[in-house]
């Protein structure tokens, strides 16, 4: 027993981060911070994947994480462009103000 760190420790940290990400999405009204919280969720899943990858001695987990990082970068570019476009039209990025369409 060389190390006392277990897979479970990693999973718990990852689960905690995922929960914090969801909390951020619910608490915050600013679209930018919500995006940040979503990035946190993806990172939490990535951490679990790398831990599992190591645990299973498989490279697949790392490959998926690499793809996820690349996708996240692309998604953030599109998402921030959308936010900036909305801000130009509306001068706000609070999600409470997205009320043009109702029922």
């Amino acid at each position, binding site marked *: 027993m060389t190390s006392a760190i277990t897979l479970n420790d990693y999973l718990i940290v990852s689960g905690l981060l995922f929960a914090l990400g969801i909390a951020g999405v619910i608490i915050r009204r600013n679209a930018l911070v919500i995006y940040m919280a979503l990035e946190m969720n993806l990172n939490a899943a990535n951490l679990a*994947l790398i831990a599992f990858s190591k*645990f299973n001695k498989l490279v697949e987990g790392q490959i998926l994480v690499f793809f996820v990082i690349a996708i996240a970068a692309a998604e953030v570019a599109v998402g921030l462009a959308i936010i900036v*476009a909305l801000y130009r039209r509306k001068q706000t990025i609070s999600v409470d103000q997205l009320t043009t369409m109702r029922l």
Partner: protein
Amino acid sequence: MTPVPYFDVLKGLGAEVILTLTALVALTLDLASVRRAEMSVRSRTIGTTAVVGLLASTLPLWQQLNGPRMVLLGGTLAMDDLIIFFKLVIVALAVITVLISMDFDVGRHVGEYYAVLLFGAVGMMLLISAEELITIFVALELTSVSLYILTAFHKGELRSQEAAVKYFMFGAISSAFLLFGLSYVFGVTGATGLQAIQDAVKNTGGLAMSPLLATGLLFTIVGFGFKVAVVPFHLWAPDAYEGAPTPVTAYIATGSKVASFFILLKVLFIGFAGLQGSAFWGNFASGWTMLLAVTATLSMILGNCAAIVQHNVKRLLAYSSIAQAGYIFIGLVAATKMGANSVLFYIIVYALANLGAFGVVAALSSRAGGDEMQNFDGMARRAPFLSLLMLIFVLSLAGIPPLGGFFGKFYLFASAVQRDAQHFGLLWLVILGIVMSAVSLYYYLILLKHIYVIDGSDQSPIITPTYLNVALGLVALAVVALGVYPKPILELLNNFSYSVIAGLVR
């Protein structure tokens, strides 16, 4: 390491390669030659290019038809007749979407619009041929990102920007849930191929009860639930459908739905084949059928009831789509070969009818000044042909015989009744479905009342381009044909779906 069959991969991806190249050609053509031309000329030129590319992409597909089932590179690329047939369906939906778009004001960035639309089609096709989690995730993201971009394309309209923000946010949440779920599935089974996951689940008997795997399954279903917009993960759908440019709405509601349902079916029926549980009345067991039964119930009730109070046509169709997703889930809950067939049949019928309905809305709303209900008053006199088509599409969605929607729904319900036929275990779900279909008739008829009965203030006739009339007419013909004579498609699906349900047969 076995040598990689690059040539087979290239052959298998022939259609996707052609579509990607067409997208680049459309971009270049727009930039190089027609940038200064009239808007309508640009739109027609680039749109025609896209249609030609889409039609060309079917050539490699026809060639692969009737070939043996091939699974390349651990499932990143699978090929069989079912997959090729659904790729053809995606191409057909994309062609109609392009034709609807050519008649619609999509803003100044015409080349970019059609390029992104084609990239979206590439994503859907890759999604359909994927039988492996990493490929599924990447293809799903390619589809979603293309659709977020298209949603924001209506630069002049605030609604479009708001819809894009909402769609993007819920899409990103769903990706996060999906990825988290997939990470647990990968961690427990040590595999990413759907078939390998099934084997891992079945080989280790105790694994089926593993709490981690159950959590992974739950999160995966939540992720897909967002993508196909079932209650309680539907919150983005009404706003995204209403705010997006109407051709894009049609694309979101049909192309991406078909691809998402197809892959959800595969993930559940192949990957999680050992974990169905049971949704039989009085005999519930934890598993994915129970989860789906709950979401199906909520979707049918909430989707139909919320649709009644809508006064925007696109929003009404959005809520009706949520309800339709609920019906489709009934077939998944059945978890049999017949269930799979009925789901596959119904998503085709649903996609055609919905695409047609949104197509008519796109063509008429841009000329009638809006997509509220009262804009459609007296439309039967102003545009009799398109109104007739709308009648067919809407009645098919409502499930009126002899249209495709009726037969599809009947088949879905029959598959649920046949499952556990002695005890009628799923009868509760079927009864709910039938009652809710009756409710849905009410709001579909309100829409038709606006078109056919109420007289509008504006009586001037609306003239739509011939190519659009022909295209939508063909869609309507297909909807009628699938209801009157569904046998060929059913036989096709029956022969094909062996590969999907093999894991469920015990």
